[in-house]
């Protein structure tokens, strides 16, 4: 795009520009590219801004005409008799004044000047007036959401399922990846191909028999179908860890073996300490997967709202409240539901993004 502006040392014969002109051109291109990217990012994240601002609004503001984008409430004036009137921006002979509307009329309205408390007659249609909005942050939506959504219960359920699932997924994947990376087993390459193929398998074909089997042993309506299978090593996690284990030097393994360490001991004290980046990445993958998973909790926990995870609870909440037109409530609820994964992502993003790249490029 702007590659021509790069200060490349030419081997001669190139046109010579002064270094200063170069620096200026370089700076302008830098600014241009960065500005362009920043505006793209702003457009991209606009729905998040919508969610954030909407979740702090009163639901009345959503449908009010001429309401500002940010959370605000109409300014009210309380007259001497205790009555509250909405304050409007009123064009008068002496410029625009903020006046409270006492008696609305099509041609003439009675206004009160909040500063003096005097009544004023105003000629014109009050419906054409714009109310005065005062920026106000309201946390009512969150209070409603926390009780209506039963957030503490959903948080506990989701944490139990995703933490236990992550322990199972990471622990088993480490064992299996170690087996694939470090042992000579006849037919191992064939097994590894099978492993890769299972990554591609559409989940639908497994779903129904698994459901029937879990139903037969009485596990539907419990968390077991969400947790137990994770202890049997997911192919994707094994693949990622095995790729990483293969890059670790074997000399340390050998030294430990000479010292009489058992394979489990070598895994624990030699491999795992070197493989932290990959292990953290896999843990984050599974944690996010489990936190965001919807289909499995939906079918296995249906009819048991006390066991529901965050996504299932949020969907049920949305189904109830979005029809009631409470856009502010559902936006607040989704903000609450995404807090934990987004916060963890910002803490662990480096390891996480490296993991995405390892899994995508090495294939």
């Amino acid at each position, binding site marked *: 795009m702007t590659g021509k502006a790069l200060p490349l040392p030419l081997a001669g014969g190139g046109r010579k520009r002064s270094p200063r002109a170069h620096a200026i051109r370089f700076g302008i291109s830098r600014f241009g590219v960065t500005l362009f990217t920043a505006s793209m990012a702003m457009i991209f994240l606009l729905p998040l801004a919508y*969610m954030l601002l909407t979740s702090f609004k009163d639901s009345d503001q959503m449908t009010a005409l001429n309401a500002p984008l940010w959370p605000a409430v109409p300014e009210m004036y309380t007259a001497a008799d205790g009555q509250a009137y909405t304050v409007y921006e009123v064009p008068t002979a002496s410029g625009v004044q903020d006046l409270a509307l006492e008696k609305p009329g099509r041609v003439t309205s009675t206004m009160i000047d909040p500063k003096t408390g005097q009544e004023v007659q105003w000629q014109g249609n009050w419906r054409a007036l714009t109310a005065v909005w005062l920026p106000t942050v309201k946390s009512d939506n969150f209070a409603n959401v926390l009780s209506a959504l039963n957030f503490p219960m959903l948080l506990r359920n989701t944490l139990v399922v995703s933490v236990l699932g992550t322990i199972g997924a990471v622990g088993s994947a480490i064992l299996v990846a170690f087996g694939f990376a470090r042992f000579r087993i006849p037919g191992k390459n064939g097994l*590894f191909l099978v*492993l890769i193929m299972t990554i591609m398998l559409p989940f639908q074909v497994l779903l129904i*028999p698994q459901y029937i089997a879990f139903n037969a042993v009485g596990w539907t309506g419990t968390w077991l179908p969400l947790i137990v299978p994770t202890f049997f090593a997911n192919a994707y996690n094994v693949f990622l860890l095995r790729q990483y284990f293969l890059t670790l030097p074997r000399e340390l393994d050998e030294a430990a073996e000479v010292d009489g360490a058992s394979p489990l001991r070598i895994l624990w004290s030699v491999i795992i300490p070197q493989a932290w980046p990959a292990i953290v990445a896999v843990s984050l993958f599974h944690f996010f997967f489990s936190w965001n998973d919807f289909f499995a909790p939906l079918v296995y926990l249906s009819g048991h709202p006390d066991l529901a995870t965050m996504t299932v609870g949020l969907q049920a909440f949305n189904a109830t409240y979005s029809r009631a037109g409470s856009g502010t409530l559902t936006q607040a609820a989704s903000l609450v539901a995404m807090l934990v994964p987004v916060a963890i992502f910002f803490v662990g993003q480096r390891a996480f993004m490296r993991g995405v790249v390892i899994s995508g490029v090495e294939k």
Partner: protein
Amino acid sequence: MAIIEDEKESVYAPAPRKMSAARRETLTGLMFLSPWIIGLVVFTALPIIASLVLSFTNFNLLHPENLRFIGLDNYSRMWNEFQNNGAVAMSLGVTARFALMSVPLMICLALGLALLLNQKLLLGKPVFRTLFFMPVLIPLVASTIVWQGFLNGSTGWLAQILHALGLPSPDWFADPAWALPGLVFLGIWGVGNMMLIFLAGLQGVPTELYEAVKVDGGGAWDRFRHVTLPMISPVLFYNILISIIGVSQYFTQAYVIDPGGQGLPGGSTFFFNINLYKEGWSYNQMGYASALAWLMMLVVVVATLVLFRTSARWVFYAGGDR
């Protein structure tokens, strides 16, 4: 590629004379593999066989005692629903239309963003990478709700922006003609994963190649067309494959838009898996739902095979022939 590698030397490989030690290594190795092997049998192999068998039965979860083999009845019902423009034809149509809209758009956007974030001139790359990636981590249920609000025909920001520009705006998720494009928008929010993979591919392109084009007098387009594109074609291939599999599993977003399972508005979000969920879990017709699952499996396998077949023509492996 480097997936399968010869393991000529193994740490635990003893001198060739000791046979028992080699066997011990195999046994120890198999012990480490055992969680996966057990899982493969119990949670993958047996369910695949079971679902194929189930697809030839009338299995109903509430009346398992009535179980009997009905031959190809499930498949002929599918064929009828396909021919008479029934649920199968509708749901396949919605899914295919969505794939045709979203896959090319997602690929182009992901590549475009990756090219942008790979610019030497760009300041603050890690910040932008994080920002464009972040929506991937938002639970799909939550991001669908955010977009339901954002695309609302009267109170949503997109409608308000369009109105401010004097343009008409549809009521996306309430309009049968616009619900699917609305879901495409929502899908764009998940572009970060592909973008990162493209970015890693771009960073692997040797700079000498770009300089060679420069020496030959080529411009930016030549660099992209003759160096970047061939060099990242394996990554492109991978991303296309992953997005096809993604569309074949599309469920959550459509379910949040219409939990009733009718694909509201007007059946426009009646995805294949919504139909499968309805048959399997609302009507408990798990035999028929298994047949549906196998149909989708078949479609994905065919699409993957076609992709692999054509890949010889356009995917370039720098290491020579695969």
